[in-house]
């Protein structure tokens, strides 16, 4: 492969090509979007309320919450919930328009009060009215969620505190008490692994929050490590393994921590993928010197001597950190 040496770093032609493609896409977006945006944003009021991309016809075209509350008690209780409080803090008449924003135009419903004339279960479009940037970001890291049809309200509570799962006490905008429970409802193998003897735990009733490592909305909160492959999310806590190292352990740099560890939980100490350390090491190392007598316990536990298994700055054989 042809390699260009630059003063500070090494870029391959593939990287250059990708950067050029990225720049072209961003430029195209800028050219394409700015005129369109100028047409879309008709009033300051719409922009202020986050409705610039909503596709809703007119900000005046709504039924006030008080009208809805005449028949639906949810109209009165919604402002008491977390979602309602956030809308109130956002200012303007957002809270007063909240019923229409999520459940759609209600003129027909007022004329004919049936379930067919109102959107009882809002689709993603309703959420994206106020959260437009979520749409593109979801594409970045969770295309599988999109393929499987996971919708906003599969994970998020709508904000009606009177519903059975309308609002969790601990995480008001989640449709479960914890992020772990929420993810576990679909990701069963991972949830089951988290119950194994050796797993990341934060206390008795606090399973490790999946979002500590996974950026479900495409952004990441630490802004630093989730996007880097060599260690990824793990080194956010295990900072001593961040590197760089003079003598790195190649599997970590190539395949990441999961080359040797089960991140969601394991029956083996240290979340290792094997019960005996020598089995794990010998699967790759085929030229171990013959004095390693595997009938002796200390030679079966390779890390007893090769303690710096994640990388060393001093010793090529990883005898010391």
């Amino acid at each position, binding site marked *: *492969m042809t390699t260009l040496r630059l003063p500070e*770093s*090494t870029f391959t032609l*593939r*990287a250059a090509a990708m950067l050029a*493609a990225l720049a072209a896409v*961003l430029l195209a977006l800028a050219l394409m979007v700015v005129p369109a945006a100028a047409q879309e944003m008709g009033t300051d009021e719409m*922009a*202020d309320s*986050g409705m610039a991309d909503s596709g809703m016809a007119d900000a005046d075209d709504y039924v006030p919450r008080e009208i809805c509350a005449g028949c639906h008690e949810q109209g009165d209780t919604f402002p008491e919930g977390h979602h309602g409080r956030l809308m109130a803090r956002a200012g303007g008449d957002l809270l007063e328009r909240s019923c229409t924003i999520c459940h759609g135009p209600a003129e027909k419903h007022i004329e004919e009060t049936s379930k067919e004339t109102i959107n009882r279960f809002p689709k993603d479009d309703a959420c994206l009215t106020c959260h*437009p940037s979520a*749409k*593109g970001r979801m*594409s970045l890291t969770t*295309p599988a969620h999109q*393929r*499987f*049809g996971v919708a906003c309200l599969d994970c998020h509570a709508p904000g009606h505190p009177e*519903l059975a799962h309308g609002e969790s*006490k*601990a995480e008001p905008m989640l449709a479960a008490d914890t992020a772990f429970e929420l993810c576990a409802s*679909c990701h*069963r193998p991972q949830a*089951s692994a988290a*119950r194994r003897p*050796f797993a990341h*735990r934060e*206390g*008795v009733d606090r399973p490790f929050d999946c979002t500590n490592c996974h950026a479900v909305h495409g*952004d990441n909160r630490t802004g*630093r490590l989730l996007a*880097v*492959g*060599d260690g990824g999310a793990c080194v956010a806590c295990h*900072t001593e393994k*961040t*590197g*760089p190292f*003079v*003598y*790195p352990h*190649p*599997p970590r740099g190539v395949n990441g921590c999961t080359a040797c560890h089960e991140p969601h939980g394991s*029956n083996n*100490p240290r979340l290792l993928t*094997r019960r005996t*350390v020598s*089995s*794990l090491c*010998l*699967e*790759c190392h*085929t*030229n*171990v010197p013959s004095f390693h*007598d595997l009938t002796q316990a200390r030679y079966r536990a390779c*890390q007893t*001597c090769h303690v710096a298994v994640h990388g060393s700055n001093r*010793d*090529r054989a990883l005898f010391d950190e």
Partner: protein
Amino acid sequence: MKSCWQSRSGWAGASLLALALALAVPLPLAAQGWSGVIGVGVIAQDDSGSVDSFRTQSDLDEGLVLEELNLTYAAGEESDKELTLRAWGFGGAEPASHARIDLALDSPWRFDLDYDRYDSFFALGGGDLALRADEWKLERWHGGVAWDGWRKARLSLDLRYHERSGSVVRPLYGLNELYPLRLDLDETMVEAALRFETKDTPVHFVLEQAYATYERANDRRPADSENLAGGDPDLFVGAAENLDETRDVPTTRILADWAGERVEVAASLLYRPSELESTGDVSSTFDLQGGSIGRVSFIDDLTSKADSDALVGNLRLGFHLAPGWTLRLSGDYRDTATDATVVGLTLFRITNPVFGTVDIGGEVDESTVFDVTEDEYRLTLEWQGGGGWSLWGGGSTSSRDVHWRFAGDDPDFDVTRDADGWLAGVGYRHGGVTASAEYQRGSFDSYVFRTDAETVDRLSLRASSQLGGGWSVRLQGRFEDSDNPGDVAALDRSSQSYGGGFAWDSEDGESGFGVDLDLADLTSDVALVLPDGGPGLSTYDLSLLSIALHGRTQVGPARLSGSAVRSEDSGDTWPLESIVARGRVAFDVFTGTELAIFGEYWSYDEERAEVDDFDVLRYGVALAWRLP
């Protein structure tokens, strides 16, 4: 069975005092405009078997625990001022704690402060890792300030401080024996990140520049002068670590995304050049025959430097071609290039009453290279038709270039490989019923590691349904086979995980129960080349059955809740059984005041050994106040 409860009467008294103080706190808070909940508990523990093993798995202890603190102070309807406090875990009974303060003023400024503590304990009586013991804590502070006064953008500054302190005891190989070495940890990370993010703009754009510095100033000393096996006359009498080790890690990150009617675009770019510099000496000293013959020291006085550039890019494109049809294109790129050097002296120092001090050793001057470049491109076509059906399929191609050299006399390792794969799936989502099936296959043409699986076949099945009346049911299965040829490593790995569950929730949400059954089977065989040159086989066999139950209901004034998980591994490698069960009864003693009594049972039983087995019963009371 022993009880730790009676042995800590002083601690119990302090706990009662804390509870009494906590009882008094909510009253003035409620009068001053606060709302929310405060819950504290006190826990006792009876244990038998290996407490160290229990702590290694859970690190739970007896003592106080802040179960929940979630308070909000609102200045009133005419003001946006709001202060929110959230915390849990403090008190010593749990291994993690968290606190967060958010402050919103009548201005565009927003402030938040986070604190996390995580304790790590590791000490097992059996297995390959029994010679190591960890007891350390990681504390993470984060402070953020944001300016939200612009209509189209937001600016924020985040400051982070991480500190790892405590100790690790591990073996040190010296004089052909293993000796216990204690490391006292002093590791810190400081980071500042400035972030610019647009809002309510057609293109959502984020630019972040962060700078982090990691410092390690650990110390070391003998944990014991005797060797671990005992009986050796040579004594481990000294160890020192005088290192000045710093890593500087600046990170630039750009995110941009846009979603229109027909097109979605998202891209990210990360550039992270890291620099390591480590200077100083590390030494260990032994008295030969208890010092009667003399003393030897191993001294490394080295300067290590490493420069690493990481460039990561992602690009996602989605085109809504026609009603129901979506084409997705994605590309990922990662390039990590590390150049490192280590120079200095390694000495073997002999001190003898007759000959004096003699240094034997030499200079070290090595350079290493470790580069990984990889890219992957995927295309997926999706169709969502009427009646809730959807189909998708696609392919991917990727390449990986790995190059390393760890010493001047070593040959370069340089492998470039290409891989490709495809997937196809079908989904159904209608009327509360969700089902999907997806098949993936991948393969490549050359090996980086002999354990790489040349071909991987993966089938995922998933179904769930809301049956009505509060009932729901779900089923899932995931089947994966991977292998490589006999002339590589004869890898043969097969895993199946499947299970299902059902749950019921009452309409008001006060009652409910659920049952989950999960099975995970994994068999993995890899041919080995043993140190004596002969053939060997690494076999791992896991057959895990997990049953989980949970439920809650209200009986009169009492709210009952409980859960239990039983896991049994009947695989050939290391059979074991684990049980965790919990129960809690809570009732209101006054308006807004809840008293709860709870208990937990933990059990761990390895079939082939007893040294790490345990049975632990934890029980306690908790009080919670809900402010209006």
